[in-house]
């Protein structure tokens, strides 16, 4: 037995606890100073970097959208030339999808919160985690530097061939797009593997499968989806690069190539991609609804199975992006059916959440407002999804503003609304301060109203015949007024985001102190200080139920016995989370950063010459070897204390 201070209390830590905190701090603290920044390996540090970087890309993409809305506010306007507009919409879409949505909803949220929610001290493979962040950052920088040099991608965010191919996409624009994919895909795949391993092996004792928080389930499902879907775009973008730089003929119909091969490979990835963005949104909604309705989410099993079902079914829909290509009717029927049926698990989740509200006590704070906004917005998007799932109807609305409206409703409704909810929910945990509730609600209402003014009319203008990706349109089509309303709506969205940024910057300095658990929530991230120390938990917890804090026994045990002079951690069994072994996280290291530099040189070099990869591989190999080469003193220490598993 040991004496611990209850996490919510105001009493000072006991003397033993203060000593323990000091020892943990000495081992786990992140390196300081300029070079220290490049050696960081703790998941909260990297998670914050992902979040801030992704949000900056969100703002950049939002500004690009502003340029587009300005150009479209008047028929045949000359605000942006056709060339610039085509770069703007491509940069906007690519940034939102590859540099904001997945890095924020999956990588940032997963990296920061999954280790905390499962009760461990760091994410699995911490140096890989750091490496993945640097690659993401460098890829984004490359993409925007190219844009600023008038070599911005301009073939749309999916960059179809032959338009993006060697014959019709001159220069390097599509090559920068294709390499952006390479950077961000390596990053995403790395975090996917880390997430799965963290959740499978690093959970707190007692956190059996049926006690894993729904948020964590969501991120695990997404991680699996990333692993099996990203290879599609890996291949399609690599093939595009090969056709453009090495003279392969994979997409050249004149010599046996096929333009639809590109589309199949891309959408194999592209459809799961949107669920990769949306499922973390639902994971956040489950979390917020639980906390702000003050009860365990209704229908845990249904919610988890729905996440898994959605993850599987998402792989069976991709051809619905290709309905206009003239596929055989039997294929059309299958993909229509599948695209409609995926509404079933999503519907199940929605009904479970409403049931939770109907039988709970609803507390209307900012995070809950965003959750409600999610319902209004995402469900509308889901409804228009049924229109596009039906082949005949899709043949009218595909590639028009109707579909632009649909995907903004599901993506902004399904990811951005939950994201703002997540930010207002977890800001206190990450920074230690509360956001202003008043400014939070103002932000919500401005954003909600602005969003609907901007995007609802797009349904109408699409039905009225306005195709997408057009840099301008003729007058007298009946489109002008609707476009102007949409452009005015953007102003509200812009103001909303400004209010939000003001809220954040003010609260960072003068927000009220949050304490460990201001929302009295149930999951483990609230069982430590705000912000968490670099060792996450003073005492590694054990768990007694789905909501670890709500279901904790009065004297819930804690874990002792890990080495305190090294970054020791506990591994547990996958199914029942019984303690299984001990392992050691690596210390801060410069190698992930150096390896990322080497990798970036290889990737960017290969845009300009095929030798980029072959010669570039050498510094990559050198930095990787440096990374994995063991240090003498830790190796000797571990060898002296080894206990081998009995066979």
């Amino acid at each position, binding site marked *: 037995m040991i004496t611990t201070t209850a996490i919510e209390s105001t009493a000072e830590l006991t003397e033993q606890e203060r000593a323990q905190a000091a020892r943990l701090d000495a081992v786990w603290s992140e390196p300081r100073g300029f070079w220290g920044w490049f050696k960081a390996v703790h998941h909260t540090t990297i998670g914050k970097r992902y979040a801030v970087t992704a949000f900056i890309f969100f703002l950049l993409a939002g500004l690009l959208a502003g340029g587009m809305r300005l150009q479209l506010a008047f028929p045949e306007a000359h605000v942006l030339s*056709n060339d610039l507009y085509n770069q703007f919409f491509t940069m906007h879409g690519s940034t939102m999808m590859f540099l904001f949505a997945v890095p924020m909803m999956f990588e940032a949220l997963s990296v920061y919160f999954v280790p905390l929610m499962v009760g461990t001290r760091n994410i699995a493979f911490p140096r890989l985690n750091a490496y993945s962040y640097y690659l993401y950052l460098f890829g984004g920088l490359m993409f925007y530097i190219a844009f600023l040099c008038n070599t911005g991608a301009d073939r749309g965010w999916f960059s179809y061939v032959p338009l993006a191919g060697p014959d019709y996409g001159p220069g390097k624009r599509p090559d920068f797009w294709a390499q952006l994919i390479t950077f961000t895909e390596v990053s995403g795949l790395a975090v996917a593997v880390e997430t799965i391993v963290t959740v499978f092996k690093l959970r707190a004792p007692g956190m059996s499968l049926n006690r894993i928080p729904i948020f964590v389930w969501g991120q695990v499902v997404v991680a699996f989806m990333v692993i099996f879907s990203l290879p599609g775009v890996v291949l399609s973008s690599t093939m595009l690069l090969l056709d453009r730089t090495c003279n392969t003929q994979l997409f050249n119909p004149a010599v046996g190539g096929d333009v639809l091969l590109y589309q199949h490979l891309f959408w194999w990835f592209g459809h799961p991609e949107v669920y990769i963005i949306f499922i973390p949104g639902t994971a956040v909604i489950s979390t917020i609804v639980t906390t702000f309705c003050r009860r365990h989410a209704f*229908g845990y099993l249904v919610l988890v199975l729905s996440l898994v079902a959605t993850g599987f079914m998402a792989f069976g829909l991709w051809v619905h992006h290709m309905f206009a290509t003239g596929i055989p009717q039997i294929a059309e029927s299958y993909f229509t059916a599948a695209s409609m049926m995926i509404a079933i698990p999503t519907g199940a989740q929605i009904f479970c959440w409403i049931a939770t509200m109907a039988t709970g006590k609803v*507390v209307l704070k900012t995070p809950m407002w965003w959750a409600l906004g999610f319902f209004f917005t995402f469900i509308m998007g889901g409804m228009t999804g049924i229109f596009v799932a039906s082949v005949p109807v899709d043949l009218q609305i595909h590639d028009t503003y109707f579909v632009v409206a649909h995907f903004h409703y599901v993506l902004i409704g399904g990811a951005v609304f939950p994201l703002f909810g997540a930010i207002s929910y977890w800001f206190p945990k990450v920074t230690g301060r509360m956001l202003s509730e008043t400014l939070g609600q103002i932000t919500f209402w401005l954003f909600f109203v602005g969003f609907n003014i901007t995007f609802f009319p797009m349904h109408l203008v699409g039905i009225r015949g306005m195709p997408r990706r*057009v840099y301008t349109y003729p007058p007298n089509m009946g489109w002008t007024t609707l476009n102007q309303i949409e452009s005015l709506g953007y102003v509200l969205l812009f103001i909303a985001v400004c209010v939000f940024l003001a809220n954040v910057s003010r609260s960072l300095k003068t927000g009220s102190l949050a304490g460990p658990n201001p929302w009295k929530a149930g999951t483990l991230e609230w069982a430590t200080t705000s912000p968490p120390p670099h060792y996450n938990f003073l005492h590694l917890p054990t768990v007694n139920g789905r909501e670890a804090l709500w279901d904790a026994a009065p004297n819930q045990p804690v874990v002792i016995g890990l080495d305190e002079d090294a970054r020791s951690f506990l591994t547990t069994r996958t199914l029942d989370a019984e303690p299984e072994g001990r392992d050691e996280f690596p210390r801060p290291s410069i190698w992930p950063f150096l390896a990322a530099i080497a990798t970036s040189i290889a990737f960017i070099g290969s845009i300009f010459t095929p030798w980029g990869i072959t010669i570039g591989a050498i510094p990559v190999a050198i930095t990787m070897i440096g990374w994995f080469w063991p240090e003498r003193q830790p190796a000797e220490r571990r060898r002296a204390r080894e206990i081998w598993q009995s066979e």
Partner: protein
Amino acid sequence: MILVHVPGFPGNQTSLNPVGPGAERIEGEFALIFWITAIVYCLVLIALVVYVLRRRHSLNIMPEPMPTTPQSDRWAKVAVSGAMVVTVLLLFIMMIGSFVTGHALGNMNRETAYTIDVYGHQWWWEVHYPNDEPDKTVVTANEIHVPLGVPLRIHGTSRDVIHSFWAPNVQGKRDLMPGYETDVMMQIDQPGRWRGQCAEYCGEQHAHMSFYMVAEPGPQFQQWLSQQAASSVPPSTPQAVRGQQVFLGHACVMCHTVRGTPAGSRVGPDLTHVASRSTIAAGLLPNTIGNLGGWILNAQSIKPGCRMPPNHMTGSELQDLLAYLETLK
């Protein structure tokens, strides 16, 4: 039937103003989905609002978490299960509707259809009316006349990148792709000029790649067709003769055909009957002398990135040229 229509979308290039069986069938399925989803959306959100208002906790502190009681969850189980059953049922209805519509569209008469070949280019539409007799073959661009009330087969492919042939009043769209030949069936039952536009991003001037389907009664259509099949009439006025010389002496012949003259290039639209068309530049400009003159002098200033270079000529050369082109009816 109230289900068959959705309120107020008159006009051109609108999928909800069908002028033929294709678009009409689609509108039916659209309406079915619209009414079902609109009603479901409203019901779900009303339920949401009602429950939030009823269960709202008004104090400013977070209440302690509630234990979940078997009673509360049993009622919720029934309600959620019921909602799921209704959801699946409604999805099935919409899905069956989709299959029925798709089947009907697929069964539109293929054997008796009148075939028109369309080739997508960056950024215009090449149109051929094939005929077993070669001297009756018609080649034109961007303006597609069709006989009224007759099944049509648009046989299409692309000469460069992927385009999409879409006349929303008539039928759903079909992508035109290099390496693929595709057939899409349609029929127009209302006379008029029905506007269409490319619906697959195809580069710099995707925004300005439109066409018109002009539906005329049979005899009128045949008259148009024979006129289009004819070679160009030699110019008779001195100005037109000079204009023909300008045409043949400038870069025009590098890209354009005028049957009856040595100009036979297929890079750009066939101009044999350009004066009979109501628009130029793929639906971008009305076909007036002024517009045509501006287009010839500097197409780049009107449709930047298009494949037509600026043409340098004196003012009088341009006037002569325009006079000649006017004769190409």
